[in-house]
């Protein structure tokens, strides 16, 4: 087999694998019609927002266009984290008067079995940079400058639920 044939085989294999990944992802997206404790189906990939036990909305990629991007450099490895403030996301669906300083906000990931519990006072303070960054696989990860979320061990990767409860 000459070099050209080998190159064609290698490139075909690379394209086939890449195409396979995209097709499987597309099929998964079509199959998922999330229903989270409500009869309202949420779009695939959206993150349900639960307020006092009731699903009030699903945070979708379209919402990102309405939000301003922020970034910070994390101390652990000096990587820039860029994304959208959780505060801004919540205020898309809730009025400020519905949130008090001691309102509890839990961001969780079912696949990573991780969660972060925060107060509205922490979330609303922009300098805390409580925000979602997009991971390499297109999922959301919760990062922040807060001490309890400062290192990647405590970040919530693949976040798929936001729960808010008022006292």
């Amino acid at each position: 087999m000459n070099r050209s044939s080998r190159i064609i085989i290698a490139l075909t294999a690379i394209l086939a694998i890449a195409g396979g990944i995209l097709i499987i992802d597309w099929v998964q997206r079509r199959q998922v019609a999330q229903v989270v404790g409500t009869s309202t189906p949420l779009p695939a990939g959206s993150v349900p927002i639960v307020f006092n036990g009731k699903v009030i909305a699903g945070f979708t990629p379209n919402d990102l266009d309405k939000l301003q991007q922020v970034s910070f450099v994390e101390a652990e490895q000096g990587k820039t984290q860029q994304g959208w403030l959780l505060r801004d996301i919540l205020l898309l669906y809730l009025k400020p008067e519905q949130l008090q300083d001691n309102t509890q906000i839990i961001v969780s990931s079912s696949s990573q079995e991780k969660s972060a519990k925060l107060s509205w006072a922490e979330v609303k303070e922009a300098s805390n940079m409580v925000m979602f960054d997009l991971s390499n696989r297109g999922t959301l990860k919760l990062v922040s400058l807060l001490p309890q979320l400062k290192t990647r061990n405590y970040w919530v990767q693949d976040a798929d639920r936001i729960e808010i409860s008022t006292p």
Partner: protein
Amino acid sequence: MKRQYFSTFQLILLALFAGLIVIAKIALRLPLQLPGHTGIFWMAILIVAARVVPRPGAASLVGLSSGLLSAFLGTGDFGPLDTVLSYTMAGVGTDLALLLLGNPENLMTATIAGMAGHLAKFLVKWAIGVVSGAPIGFVALGLARTLVSYLVFGALGGLLGGLTLAALRKAGFFAYLEEKR
């Protein structure tokens, strides 16, 4: 006495390349907000390693060693398993591509091998996400964009590796290695 697959000298070289990958991953940061951009450095190192120690499995061993080192250092957002497997598969992907294509001193070969190795890394990260039940990517175009970014930076890394090999040959490094043998 049974001859070892890798000589001690070759193992030392491979360990150095593994260390270089980890250093590149931590210390060399491009101001790019693009996924997989560090592949430009470490696919180059993998390609160079695969030629300096011209035995099938050299890139895989460098991948495994650098993955273990990185896991101990806590790099990577998705935990040590993801780190070890993805680094190892980058080496395996590179080895498989070079088995088919031959000498990475050819720039086209190096570019495609870099692309294949980086794609293998992405494949593992994506597969772990699927198996662990990670939510489907939030941004529909996120996966395609990431995939293209991985392929481009893998190809650039491979090309950089090929150019490095050409420079090493010009500097007489391979003649020196032959002499040592």
